[in-house]
């Protein structure tokens, strides 16, 4: 009997377990928090206790957190669906691939890196899912701690993007009473209720700001109040349709001007001009 034979099997089994664990970890990272691919996962989970509420939540565009009792099934369902769903989606969340190497190239690329209108509309449609109108604070599409603001900041202070999950960065300075403006969906412990019909039609998000001429930099078509960090929506972690075509530029308002009306500055109403010159005709 060779003393080191069992240890080789142990090593092999150990390596196998490690391999499976690593694969599982990364597969798990992708799942199940993608609001777009709901069908497969929803069907797979429909028999699980409590999943009915999650189903409703997902249809509402919210991302339910997976609890431990559902974790195994969620992963299995995602394994079958995640690859397919990614390939299926015509709209990747990947960022602008081309970076310029010279200043001349930078100028050209900013114009050339065009965002297809369909991508832009897709991005705006996604934003509408949790906003009553353009300018409304987004509602929270996932369950939240009822009393802790710190838990929001943990993810949203920086923001990030994985292949399937997008965590927007706070677009404004740190404000500690998050739920004052951003309300969540109902707690999973609460019985869901019908929502009354409402015919409010919200202001649409513009598809772009007005330009003085075709290749002029567009003006900012929204207020910059609470939207101090442009990259929160227009940066690499955003939908491609909203991303800047020239991420290497840092000083956004150098070229893109804000609207004094939307900014509610008092300057506009106080603006005066000199009286016109009086010229007597001969």
């Amino acid at each position, binding site marked *: 009997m060779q003393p080191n034979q069992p240890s080789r099997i142990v090593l092999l089994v150990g390596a196998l377990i490690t391999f499976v664990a690593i694969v599982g970890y990364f597969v798990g990272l992708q799942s199940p928090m993608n609001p777009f691919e709901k069908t497969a996962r929803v069907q797979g989970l429909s028999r699980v206790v409590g999943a009915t509420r999650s189903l*409703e939540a997902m*249809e*509402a*565009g919210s991302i339910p957190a997976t609890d431990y009792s559902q974790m195994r099934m969620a992963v299995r369902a995602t394994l079958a669906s995640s690859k397919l769903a990614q390939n299926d989606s015509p709209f990747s969340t990947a960022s602008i691939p081309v970076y310029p190497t010279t200043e001349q190239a930078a100028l050209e690329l900013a114009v050339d890196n065009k965002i297809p209108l369909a991508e832009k509309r897709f991005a705006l449609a996604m934003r*509408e*899912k*949790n*906003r*009553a*109108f*353009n*300018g*409304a*604070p987004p*509602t929270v599409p996932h369950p939240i701690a*009822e*009393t*802790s*603001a710190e838990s929001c900041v943990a993810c949203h202070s920086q923001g990030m993007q994985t292949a399937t999950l997008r965590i927007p960065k706070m677009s404004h300075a740190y404000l*500690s*009473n998050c*739920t*004052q*403006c951003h*309300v969540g*969906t*109902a*707690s999973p*412990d*609460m*019985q*869901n*209720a*019908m*929502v*009354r*019909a*409402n*015919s*409010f*039609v*919200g*202001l*649409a*998000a*513009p598809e*772009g*700001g007005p330009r003085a001429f075709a290749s002029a930099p567009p003006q900012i*078509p*929204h*207020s910059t*109040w609470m939207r101090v960090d442009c990259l929160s929506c227009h940066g690499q972690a955003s939908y491609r349709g909203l991303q800047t075509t020239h991420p290497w530029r840092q000083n956004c308002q150098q070229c893109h001007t804000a*609207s004094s*009306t*939307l*900014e*509610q*500055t*008092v300057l506009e*109403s106080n603006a005066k001009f000199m009286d016109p010159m009086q010229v007597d005709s001969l």
Partner: protein
Amino acid sequence: MALPQPAQSQEKSLSNAERRNFLKSSAMAAATAVAAGTSNWSLPVIQGSEIADDVKWNKAPCRFCGTGCHVQVGVQDGKVVAVAGDRNAEVNKGLLCVKGYHVGSALYGEDRLKTPLLRHGDKYVAITWDEAIGIIADRIAAAPNQFAFYGSGQWTIPEGYAALKFMKGGLGNNHIDPNARLCMASAVTGFLATYGVDEPAGCYDDLDKCDVLIMWGNNPAEMHPVLFSRVVDRRSRGEKVLLIDIGTRRTRTTTHCNHYLEMKGHGDLAIANGIAHLLLAKKTYSHEFVSSFCNFKAPDDANPNLHGKSISFDEYAEQLKPYTPEYVEELSGVPADQIRLLADLFGNPELKITSLWCMGMNQHTRGTAINSLVHGIHLLSGHFGRPGDAPTSLTGQPSACGTVREVGTLSHTLPGGRLVATPEHRQQTEDIWKLPAGRINPVPGFHTVQMWESFCTPKAEGGVIDTIWVQVTNPGQTLPNLNKLFNKKEGMKEKFLIVSDVYPTATTRLADLILPSAMWVEKNGMFGNSERRTQQWFKMVEPPGEARDDCWQTIAVAHRLFEKGFEGMKDRDGRFLFEVLDQEGKPVPIWNWKNYYDTNVDQHLFEEYRLFSRLKHKDLAPYTEYVKARGLRWPVVQVNGQWTETRHRFAGGLDPYVSNGKRIQFYHSSTKDDRAQIWFHPWIPPAEVPDADYPFMLCTGRVLEHWHSGSMTRRIPELSRAMPTAYVEMNAADAADAGIRNGNQVIVESRRGSMEIQAWIEGRGKPPKGTVFIPFFDETKMVNNLTLDAVDPFSKQPDYKKSAVRIRKV
């Protein structure tokens, strides 16, 4: 800050293409909403590429709470499409809460009332406005003294003023009271007993300056979130502010606080006395402030009124002797060390201390007492009269101060702090209203609880009130002990309930006549917020269907009575009580709806009402000044030709009515010596305490997402989704003992009624063992079937916070 406003007119010509596009998108939006049913939580958004260019923006105060944030309302094609925080508003500085951001959707719930409806058995039939006005006028003419008007702190100032003049000037009937009786009446009596005049001396600026903020039974993180952010955001800028939460349950506010003092109901009385006891014992009270500016008072049991009896400093100290920290701990449940902590803070003259409170201290059977006691410890310690040092009560409704407390729409008051019982006040009012002498009835009318009790009592048994007209409120959900004060109306044929509202509510359920009202920016309006700030806005969109302004409804009924020859609707010259003259001196027929907006009725009513504001140093500026401003805090006086507001009252250099050279002057002192009254009130247990049969103490209240009875906010998908329905909050240990788990349906019952509701454990708030909490916003979960109708002896305000209940699993 005076800012020119854009023109109010929203006239706009649409190109055909634009119109088509808009109609199409509206139709699509409607279709989408129908097809998606309940699963589509998000609201439709106008399609197309138009950007904000054709959106007209104008200012308005928010429709909801008493904070008084200003919003910018975006209107496109005659509809509100967006809302933004007003960056030029001092109150909110551009920020709003989630209710404010979605206030525009409150106009567009699909079941808006659009036509007058008259009850026929179990059904309603649509009738014309002409018929509806006739029905009301006939009932009033038949028995003017059996008619009552039940109004609201959501009435605009002109609406409340018109209703008050209609009742007290027109009918000689004082049975008019507002829902604010249920909300801030004890704050009023607290201010009157202490300073001799109502409303806070401080303002929101104190929140920017204070070193310590003490919240007495208050949860501003949810109820006044914009004000709360104004304080906690100071920490983000590196400033130090100590937050102390004195409460009966852990809330979202608690998580931001440095100290949480968990007390039993009515523990606040003991805590305030405990602080005063220690200030005297340690001699850390302000001897200078007390000897210069204060007297001492105690309740006069033989003759209970707001004047009480004068006592000496020694008698005051003697009464406080028993309230040692240890005894206070026994009464309130708050550890003695935390009482010492509070006393040490108040004893430190270097600190600036602001106290905030709202329903916790007001909905209290000793509400007048606890309001007076909190003012008292601020005065005793000298924490008064410097920016940042202020006892400040908050209001829950947008115009509880403006319309109720200043206009005086209460059963015993007249505008400008006048009282119906005082002959001189009646005469002043009759002069301004040009009434024949003796028109105003000297006997105060029924307060809210009496009014509804009388309405729900058969005439044969002495229930004299046979008709109530309700405007801008929902008593069928918000009165306490509903089974006694409201539900008994069902089937009482001799009683007639008229309700003006914008949506079907728990109140319209029993209404005999329902009138569709215009709301918020569908009409001109003015509100007055918690910090004495009077605000104005213009009509921006048309109301739906046949809906019309509440103020027009009142004036139309008044004119119908006038046409019938009803003497009360004539002034002493025989002219209509609400006559408005145009520039040529001809009457404008404002009682005809088509002519109502030929003139600005709000402006006419406000200019008349403004005359009263001078009588008690609450001076208001002309209407046109409010058009330019984001509200102005009274007294607004002219300084070098400029209308100038007042931030801090009674303080030299800050209040224009304080005589030169005086540091502090309480110029409305009830003892006529420029001094405020420091009261002693003993601790008294709540009106109902848990026992073996009903072992839990029930507290009711609100949540961030919903405002009052939820008739507006539950029709806003974003808010309804976040908080779909009411729940009972339980302590985890109590729930475990009863075998109740999260989401279980339970029966909660009191001696007055019962309800079925789901349990939420370790949820939004965390009540201590032996207590439960239920919010009142849900019309399908009527917690007010359970609450007690016991009232404060002075303010007549009920206590919604302390009812004994028992709970069992379904």
